[in-house]
């Protein structure tokens, strides 16, 4: 592995952005700061109607979109640099990858054949991803890189999608010693039927890995009786591999839930790029040139790749420095050497496009 000296300006860019809180729906100060930083580096900038920070550099016909997100989950972590690592909420998820985009595109500017557009999208961490959904209405670019952490030596090819829903069952109150099932018992029966159904579907689909498995998560549950009405409710999220049709799954959920009811709160298909993507060779070359051994990753979670991927269907991968295991934790921090390596790798990739 080569030694890395991350430029002070690039460290300052990341530190400044991490210092500005940017919870979902409260990103504006960070968006404006990012636009100022990009403008100072030669980008043409604006804030779009959804509140996304947009910066473009270069003037070639080939259009490359680097789509990162600027919002973070809650949890203040004092911003500091210790032992070569920058601590702070968002350092990994995903201001590190977003600043990598800005630094790499500006470093490549003099040798770009393409126009590179960096997006600091709002709302990735909340239901609906409004920032990415707004960007997805653009004409499809020639290439797209999503900014999420997998490590400087990894190229992420795909994410699972999601299907979130509330289940609710209600019935008139009854004596607990009488016949029939309580609402709580019916809710548990639905959960058991759901997991059995998913086991059957996974087996039929030949799912042998986490990425190819439909996985349920019971996020909340409640059962109670107010003397007149007996009710139970659950909030459930399903992770969906690419290729699973959420609409067909929804209709099966309604059948399983009866007499309970399903209220779907969010649907997103999974997305995966092939290893033969034309974006893969420049990344593998650049990672090897930096002394790394490239890795491919598939994520069991969800990102904005699942928003723009199915719409644009252009060559697309996800890239960014940092350890995703630190996402959303009190230990969130990023190695500045890894940040610098990722900037150089992405700079080389952009120059090759």
């Amino acid at each position, binding site marked *: 592995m080569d030694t890395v000296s991350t430029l002070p300006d690039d460290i300052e860019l990341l530190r400044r952005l991490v210092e500005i809180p940017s919870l979902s729906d409260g990103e504006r100060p960070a968006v404006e700061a990012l636009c100022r930083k990009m403008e100072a580096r030669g980008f043409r900038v604006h804030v779009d109607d959804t509140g996304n920070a947009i910066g473009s550099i270069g003037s070639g016909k080939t259009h490359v979109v680097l789509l990162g997100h600027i919002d973070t989950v809650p949890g203040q972590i004092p911003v500091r640099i210790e032992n070569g690592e920058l601590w702070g909420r968002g350092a990994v998820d995903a201001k590190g990858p977003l600043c990598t985009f800005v630094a790499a595109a500006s470093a490549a500017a003099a040798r770009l054949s393409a126009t590179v557009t960096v997006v600091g999208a709002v709302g990735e961490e909340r239901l609906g991803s409004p920032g990415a959904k707004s960007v997805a209405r653009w004409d499809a670019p020639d290439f797209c890189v999503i900014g999420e952490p997998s490590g400087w030596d990894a190229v992420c090819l795909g994410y699972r999608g999601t299907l979130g829903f509330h289940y609710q069952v209600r019935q008139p109150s009854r004596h607990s010693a009488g016949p029939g099932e309580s609402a709580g018992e019916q809710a548990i029966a639905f959960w058991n039927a759901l997991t059995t159904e998913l086991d059957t579907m996974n087996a039929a689909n030949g799912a042998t890995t*986490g990425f190819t498995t439909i996985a349920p998560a019971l996020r909340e549950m409640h059962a109670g009786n107010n003397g007149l009405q007996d009710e139970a409710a659950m909030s459930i999220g399903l992770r969906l591999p690419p290729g699973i049709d959420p609409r067909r799954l929804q209709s099966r959920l309604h059948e399983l839930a009866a007499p309970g009811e399903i209220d779907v709160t969010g649907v997103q298909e999974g997305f995966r790029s092939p290893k033969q993507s034309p974006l893969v060779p420049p990344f593998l070359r650049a990672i090897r040139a930096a002394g790394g051994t490239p890795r*491919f990753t598939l994520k069991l*979670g969800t990102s904005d790749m699942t928003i723009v991927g199915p719409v644009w269907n252009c060559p697309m991968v996800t890239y960014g420095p940092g350890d995703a295991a630190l996402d959303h934790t009190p230990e969130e921090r990023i190695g500045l050497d890894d940040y610098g390596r990722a900037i150089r790798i992405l700079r080389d990739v952009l120059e090759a496009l």
Partner: protein
Amino acid sequence: MNVTCPECGAEWELSGVEQGEIVTCPDCGVDLEVLTTNPATVGLAPEEGEDWGE
């Protein structure tokens, strides 16, 4: 130029590829990375791992 699959030993002619491209062994179907183009050499493609993060 002929390359040899490191998995099964099959030899075949490989042309019109770029360094870093992922190709498939026509014999055993394993994914291979083009390591060099002049002369052409291939190695096993990077491993595909999973993690739960974003």
